[in-house]
């Protein structure tokens, strides 16, 4: 007798029912993310309306109506303003950016010598890219190339004055080149100096501790704009006539010290987050102070404060535009300087130039930010 003959037991397999329609596809995604509840639906519709209201005119202004080429203000001015565009026209003046692009990159650096900063820029990208990708080997050689060879080469090539290269004084430097040199030096100096200052401030040696605290508090307590202004305006009054310090060098030192003081506090935050057990563990292994810091404490502390470090870098990158108050023209400075060229004066020139400068700054800052996010994931050892 077949015991499976009970009426409540199925004799055949049930037909597979179709998958719920809403676990995949665009419709499901839309429903889950945009129209899940009446409130979501209302917000979605409002957002779409706002976008529809903002985006097409922006695209119209930025791209479709924009003046892309031309040799003077005529292409960016209406007939009433003495130009060639129809009355009531408004669009971005990319012709201005186009015509001044070399200046935005190099400032007033002599045209026939511009291959020098261009070469440094290419080498910078060549050395930096493998440094940023964790899988690429030979990090030591790469670091030497980037942090020793490149600065020395820059010191030879950018100012010139030896090996038959004509001397290009720093007042002629400008544009993106100045922004990048200032921020690169600032970043390269501020990280190690900031770590040393943070360690000094946590040190048990009273003199070191006092000096580091004093440096940090004084530098952090004065606005950068004041430091730059004092360095450029007041310093020459104290020096004997004829003795001049290069303005660019003064700005470089000011910016580097400034970033170091901020960096020191960021690193100190990381040091404080490391449990006492880590220090004691290192001590009980018989490690020296520097071994303890290098092998145990700093790797953990720095990893914790990556967002803070990158935040300081981004702040530093944007702070470099303050040098325009001491008569140096960084990217923003040179863009603004060119507004005064009456051959390009028009209603849309300033806004176009500022959008361009803003875009370049955003590009660099966003790049740094994304890279820091990537590093956080790579270094994540999931103690969280």
């Amino acid at each position, binding site marked *: 007798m077949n015991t499976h003959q009970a009426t409540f037991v199925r004799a055949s397999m049930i037909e597979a029912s179709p998958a719920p329609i809403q676990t995949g596809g665009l419709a499901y995604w839309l429903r889950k993310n945009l129209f899940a509840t009446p409130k979501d639906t209302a917000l979605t519709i409002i957002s779409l309306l706002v976008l529809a209201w903002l985006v097409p005119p922006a695209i119209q202004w930025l791209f479709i109506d924009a003046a892309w080429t031309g040799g003077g*203000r005529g292409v960016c*001015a*209406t007939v*009433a*303003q*003495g130009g060639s565009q129809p*009355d009531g026209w*408004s669009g971005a003046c990319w012709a201005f950016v186009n*015509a001044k692009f*070399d*200046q935005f990159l190099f*400032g*007033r*650096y002599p*045209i026939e010598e511009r291959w020098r900063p261009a070469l440094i820029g290419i080498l910078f990208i060549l050395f930096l890219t493998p440094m940023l990708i964790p899988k690429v080997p030979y990090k030591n050689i790469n670091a030497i190339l980037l942090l020793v060879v490149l600065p020395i080469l820059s010191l030879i090539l950018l100012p010139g004055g030896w090996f038959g290269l004509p001397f290009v*004084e720093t*007042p002629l430097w*400008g544009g993106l080149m100045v922004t990048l040199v200032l921020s690169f030096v600032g970043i390269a100096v501020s990280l190690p100096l900031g770590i040393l200052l943070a360690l000094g401030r946590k040190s048990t040696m009273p003199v070191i501790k006092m000096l580091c605290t004093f440096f940090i508090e004084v530098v952090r*307590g*004065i606005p950068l704009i004041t430091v730059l*202004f*004092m360095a*450029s*305006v*007041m310093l*020459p*009054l*104290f020096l004997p*006539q*004829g003795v*001049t310090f290069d303005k660019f060098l003064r700005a470089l030192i000011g910016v580097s010290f400034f970033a170091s003081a901020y960096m020191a506090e960021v690193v100190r935050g990381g040091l404080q987050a490391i449990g006492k057990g880590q220090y004691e563990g290192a001590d009980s292994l018989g490690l020296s102070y520097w071994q303890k810091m290098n092998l145990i404490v700093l790797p953990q502390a720095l990893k914790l404060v990556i967002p803070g470090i990158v935040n300081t870098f981004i702040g530093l990158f944007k702070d470099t535009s303050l040098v*325009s*108050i*001491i*008569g140096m*023209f960084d990217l923003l400075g040179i863009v*603004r*300087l*060119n*507004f*005064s*060229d*009456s*051959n390009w*004066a*028009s*209603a849309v*020139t*300033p*806004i176009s130039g500022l959008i361009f400068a803003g875009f370049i700054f955003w590009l660099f800052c966003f790049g740094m930010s994304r890279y820091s996010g990537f590093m956080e994931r790579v270094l994540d050892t999931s103690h969280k």
Partner: protein
Amino acid sequence: MARRILTALVGAAVMGIGAHAASAATLDDVKAKGFVQCGVNTGLAGFAAPDASGNWSGFDVDYCKAIAAAIFADGTKVKYTPTSAKERFPALQSGEVDVLARNTTWTINRDTALGFNFRPVNYYDGQGFMVRKGLNVKSALELSGAAVCVQTGTTTELNLADYFKSNNLQYNPVVFEKLEEVNAAYDAGRCDVYTTDQSGLYSLRLTLSKPDDHMILPEIISKEPLGPAVRQGDDQWYDIVTWVHYSLIQAEEFGVTQANVEEMKKSTNPDVQRFLGVEADSKIGTDLGLTNEWAVNVIKAVGNYGEVFDRNIGAGSPLKIERGLNALWNKGGIQYAPPVR
């Protein structure tokens, strides 16, 4: 604490100025280093602005070139120091620049207390008003209650306050830090009136969306004589800067231009011969510490005053500023040079 340190530093700096002012012979320094260090604006349309290839050009810049040409017979031997409004005076006091050609108004305070010398006025400017035609205003005296766009931290702002106070008029200042902000605010209709120096009104006109809807009121409420400034205590250098300007004026009066200067040397007019240093036994330049050809070199480098004006700010430029007060004395203006004799 920081303030006390600052006070001490400023005090020391002011004493330092006294010491520097005593050091003489700028001309010798300039000849020794081989170029003129010239303080210019950090960007002002028509006066000091970058050209297509990034070189400085403009009305004030041409004065720097002219001074260099007078000394070295080469208008390119100049190095420019762009200075902000705050930086310009310390830069000249400290000797960082040899001459300040930066649309600086000659005032008694700057001439005396700050320790500078001004003499020639290379551009007579004055503060004016621009309004929308729709307001139906014919005079600045009808502007009671108006919203006035003005750049903060300038003498313009102070003149405006003085003018409205002395005429018992009310006004609402709408102030901005940057010039382009003021321009944009006026163009967007955030204020009824725009006030700045007249030369600035001309450059503003280039950037308005509907230039024909605006008019400049007849009132000029301030005198703004602009000219090159030098440190006190060096009369020779002061004379050179002064006479470079007068040579430009004189050249225009004689009809000597950049193009015809070599030809004019053959002129039979004894005044022209004397001016161009071709007179026998001429000491016209050597007494200044220069060569007798100095005026020729200046004109070869930049042309005469009229040419400099036209090229940078006048009819030959987008600004199209009228000569007005800056016409020669015999053409209705007040630009006048003492005799070259």
